[in-house]
């Protein structure tokens, strides 16, 4: 067996994957999720190595999309722990990621006063290590390792990655969405048959109601509130759902000819829309097709928000960041509007425990703010899930597309994952794993071995009917690390070996009083009758050949009534030779011919 050198691939600080860098032997995968972020801000990278530099252990880092739970620890990892190898992400991710990281840093360091955090300069230095990849581009990381990005939907620039060494491969999905939404297309992968598919399973058991229903519901609520003169607050994260909801409201305002103003909190979001405009090739088909006539991200009805607007009388809709109402503008506006039952807050996504968003969603109506102030929430609180993850149906669909040999579930709740795991195993008859944090899963692969076959040998075998499987014979030459399959003759020639001929000759005695040539003729006719598929020839010198087997007849020296048949064949014709001798030994048929 060849040596197995492992390469480690760190995927987004969440997952450590090892795949062997040689084409034979075992295939091992270890996956682990970091402890919950409440306990620890950054993943524990000592899982990769306790002593030694990360760069020596990792071939590359792959970032699937710009969400902070996928790239938030990157500057810490590369600049503070220390990693100098390549970091791969798509162009939009590369563009947007540093802005979100900077935003994250500001909130954590400037607002919350945390220390021991990465600096702006570290973000810049980290981004210098990023290599941008195109969709479907095959990136050769080193001589053996190649990666390829596939479209994942979810957010602008999100990608799934195929990681390949020799003929073994792993697909890591990151977060993905199998149904197109108002601004992004659906994830897609070809039938790449990876040995392992690592998929997120956020919505492992949910089969979500139709998108249209949720959208209609959303619009109805916004519309009703605005009609009765109320104000609608939609806390969002700057990128992603915000754009989808803006498109939704924009088209609705247009259609219904509504006049109430819609605002978008300034800063990041305006910039964000600009990114969507410039990376329009990453959005869905419809937006891409019509962008020259009408760029969907140039909003007519949605204007930049100014702090002072919050106190304006009359209805309005405001998109404000951040999305969980834990700080910033959205929280400020919330405090202003919370007291009025005409108003409404719509939470379009999941909220982490401890945030104001989480509290009001769980029904709390009296909130303790800073300075012991009690804020009474009279406004209506609505929750609508617009986050774009694949649901159970979507996950199954992706498995069907990619046809993996093993599936590994991450990023979900254990109970739901267990259900999905069973479903996957039942439907696709593949192994499905769901390792806990820190657990190692070993997956064995059984790769076939690619060798070089000489065209001469291949053509000889496929000349007749290429479609039909057929038995072929060749010699495998193994030299250094190359494997070549050639014809035996060529192998001998190449190695300078002489062929050793092994020949068998057998005497078969037959009782036949006739003349020799008549005996020969009888033998000839007999063989011809029996061996219909073989070339049986009667040569002028009186001998008979069956393929390359030679048969000669002589009269017995002592007994003229007995003829001796000499059957001679080479080792290569062993079967036929043995068959012939035993056939002839049974004597000739008593026919008159």
């Amino acid at each position, binding site marked *: 067996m060849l040596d197995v050198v492992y390469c480690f691939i760190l995927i987004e600080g969440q997952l450590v994957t090892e795949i062997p860098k040689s084409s034979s032997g075992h295939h091992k995968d270890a996956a682990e999720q970091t402890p919950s972020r409440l306990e620890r801000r950054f993943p524990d990278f000592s899982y990769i190595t306790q002593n030694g530099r990360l760069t020596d252990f990792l071939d590359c880092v792959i970032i699937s999309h710009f969400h902070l739970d996928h790239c938030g620890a990157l500057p810490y990892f590369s600049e503070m722990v220390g990693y100098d190898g390549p970091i791969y992400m798509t162009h939009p991710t590369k563009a947007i990621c540093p802005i979100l990281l900077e935003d994250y840093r500001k909130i954590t360091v400037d607002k919350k006063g945390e220390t021991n955090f990465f600096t702006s300069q570290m973000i810049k230095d980290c981004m210098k290590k990023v290599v941008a990849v195109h969709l479907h581009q095959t990136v050769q990381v080193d001589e053996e390792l190649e990666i390829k990005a596939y479209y994942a939907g979810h957010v602008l620039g999100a990608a799934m990655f195929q990681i390949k060494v020799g003929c073994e491969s792993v697909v890591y999905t990151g977060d993905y969405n199998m149904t197109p939404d108002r601004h992004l297309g659906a994830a897609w992968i070809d039938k790449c048959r990876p040995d392992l598919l690592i998929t997120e399973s956020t919505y492992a058991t949910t089969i979500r109601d139709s998108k249209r229903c949720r959208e209609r519901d959303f619009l109805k609520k916004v519309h009703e509130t605005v009609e009765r003169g109320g104000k609608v607050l939609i806390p969002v994260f700057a990128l992603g759902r915000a754009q989808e909801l803006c498109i939704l409201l924009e088209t609705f305002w247009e259609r219904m000819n509504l006049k109430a103003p819609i605002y978008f909190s300034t800063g990041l979001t305006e910039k964000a829309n600009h990114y969507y405009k410039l990376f329009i090739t990453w959005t869905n088909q419809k937006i891409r097709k019509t962008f020259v006539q009408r760029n969907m991200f140039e909003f007519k009805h949605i204007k930049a928000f100014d702090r002072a607007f919050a106190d304006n009388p009359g209805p309005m809709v405001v998109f404000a960041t951040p999305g969980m109402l834990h700080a910033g503008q959205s929280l400020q506006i919330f405090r202003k509007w919370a007291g009025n039952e005409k108003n409404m807050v719509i939470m379009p996504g999941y909220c982490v425990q401890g945030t104001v968003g989480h509290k009001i969603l769980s029904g709390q109506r009296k909130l303790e703010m800073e300075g012991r102030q009690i804020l009474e929430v009279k406004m209506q609180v609505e929750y609508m899930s617009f986050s774009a993850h694949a649901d159970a149906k979507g996950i199954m669909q992706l498995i069907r597309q990619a046809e993996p040999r093993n599936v590994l579930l991450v990023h979900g709740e254990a109970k739901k994952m267990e259900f999905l795991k069973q479903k996957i195993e039942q439907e696709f008859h593949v192994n499905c794993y769901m390792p806990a944090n820190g657990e190692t899963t070993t997956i064995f692969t059984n790769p076939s071995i690619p060798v070089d076959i000489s*065209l001469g040998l*291949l053509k000889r075998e496929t000349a007749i009917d290429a479609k039909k499987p057929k038995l072929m014979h060749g010699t495998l030459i193994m030299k250094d690390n190359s494997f070549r399959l050639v014809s035996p003759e060529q192998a001998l020639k190449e190695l300078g070996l002489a062929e050793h001929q*092994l020949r068998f000759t057998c005497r078969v005695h037959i009782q036949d009083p006739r003349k020799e040539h008549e005996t020969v003729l009888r033998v000839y006719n007999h063989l011809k009758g029996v061996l219909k*598929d073989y070339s049986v020839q009667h040569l002028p010198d009186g001998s008979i050949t069956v393929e390359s087997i030679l048969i000669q007849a002589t009269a017995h020296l002592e007994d003229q009534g007995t003829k001796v048949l000499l059957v001679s064949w080479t080792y290569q014709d062993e079967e036929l030779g043995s068959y012939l001798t035993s056939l002839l030994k049974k004597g000739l048929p008593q026919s008159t011919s």
Partner: protein
Amino acid sequence: MLDCGLDMTSTLNFLPLPLVQSPRLSKLPGLVLKDGSTFLDKELKECSGHVFVDSVPEFCLPETELLDLSTVDVILISNYHCMMALPYITEYTGFTGTVYATEPTVQIGRLLMEELVNSIERVPKAQSASMWKNKEVQRLLPAPLKDAVEVSMWRKCYTMPEVNAALSKIQLVGYSQKIELFGAVQVTPLSSGYALGSSNWIIQSHYEKVSYVSGSSLLTTHPQPMDQASLKNSDVLILTGLTQIPTANPDGMVGEFCSNLAMTVRNGGNVLVPCYPSGVIYDLLECLYQYIDSAGLSNVPFYFISPVANSSLEFSQIFAEWLCHNKQTKVYLPEPPFPHAELIQTNKLKHYPSIHGDFSNDFKQPCVIFTGHPSLRFGDVVHFMELWGKSSLNTVIFTEPDFSYLDALAPYQPLAMKCVYCPIDTRLNFIQVSKLLKEVQPLHVVCPEQYTQPPPSQSHRTDLMIDCQPPPMSYRRAEVLTLPYKRRYEKIEIMPELADSLVPLEIKPGISLATVSAMLHTKDNKHVLQLPPKPPQPPTSKKRKRVSDDVPECKPLKPLLSGSIPVDQFVQTLEKHGFSDVKVEDTAKGHIVLLQEAETLIQIEEDSTHIICDNDEPLRVPEGRKVKFCCSDAV
């Protein structure tokens, strides 16, 4: 099929298509042949000593006679200029294959086609000249019509439905994407640095690599730089699409362009720039963006008139991933990569779909107009040539290298307007070619014949040809060329079960051999070797050694043998197996081993063994096996 370009120089033989009827053009005299006959005077008109066909312009198609295009499986497109003939091929030849191109190539190619169709369709012409194409008639015509090739194959422009149908057959690909074709070869587009999405192609199997280098540029303009590294280790490099103007330096030309433009405008004249709606125009606008203020041109309006002007300007901004590094960085800010966004915002550059409508209200002179078509035969450029041609204050500046500017101007003669020729062709010149070839070192170079000799007009310039070792193989129209490589190997996969069953034997230090007898499965040009099916079990009870009565069905090949037999060891082995009466006799070439009891004689020589057995067949079989064991190695 590599590329699918349209030869549009054929249109130079036609009269321009003015949007508004031109009194000058309609008054041109009909052609009178030398013998005084006038039967062609409706079809052919004379203008300043040149003869033009008065008909809808026609184009010269790619060669379609040489082979049946319905047998073509794949067309690879290298840039948007090289796909203009696609509708003729996909819609009229029975072609059912796939076309591969990058996204910018398709989008901008669509714009070019749209502009072409639009500018021809909006000027319907009742007359369609065909008499002159008759071979007998053509012979009588003055040059260059007399010498035009394959005029019977010239075709009118396609329609938008045909364009859409053709484009729907294109499969989008990205740079460095590996595309499997029928399991037999892999094709990969690489950045060629010439235009948005322009590609060179690698066509390779596991052992052979052919590079198709067409329309490449080593200059830094707006597209992503050329990927040279991936072209290394090519067996064959097909080189085409070099610069058409090897003596002109693009940078110098841009400078000349700007100064001529400024001079004309300062003198109160107008500038006309006949151009394609995408490509060099982006670079020109960028230069002007930097130049306008310093040259005091801030108040001069720049107009870009094309049915696809808006689309082209918009599309240029969304292909960040296909742009050079500097432009990519801008998108990360986020800012539009091209500064023409700012020119539009500040109203310095205005774009219109045509001269109708808004343009006529906004039109102010002096001004600079970018419009098509560079052949000056159709599109809004015709209108401005007629409008401005009479004044020597105005200038027409030619920047596109595809058409001879003198031929383009011929039907407008006599002209008072100034004509400046600043061809900007960023594709490889011969110096860059030799640098490239030195860098990538292909085993063989294949190129069109004209690159292997100096241009006919400058026959002393031996530097204007490809110089490499070994000398390039050249081809000309309708010539069949055999590429100089021999295929020796293919990949085959050995299934793990079969691999487990193989018994490698070290024959020489570091070299092992294993005999492989396996089932060969071939599907989609992929070959797989599996364990052969188990031979059917012989009828259960019977004596093992008895050969079955059935005729052996297939001929399972036995391995060849090699090596020689050490006699002593052989005899020992025989004795171990119960042969007590082994006698060995030496002969000239080897030994004879006699087994009397078994009535068997074994001749052993250096490279052969002959087992002769009298009558006692069953013995032979184990014997043979033993020989095989002793006899070193089965190959």
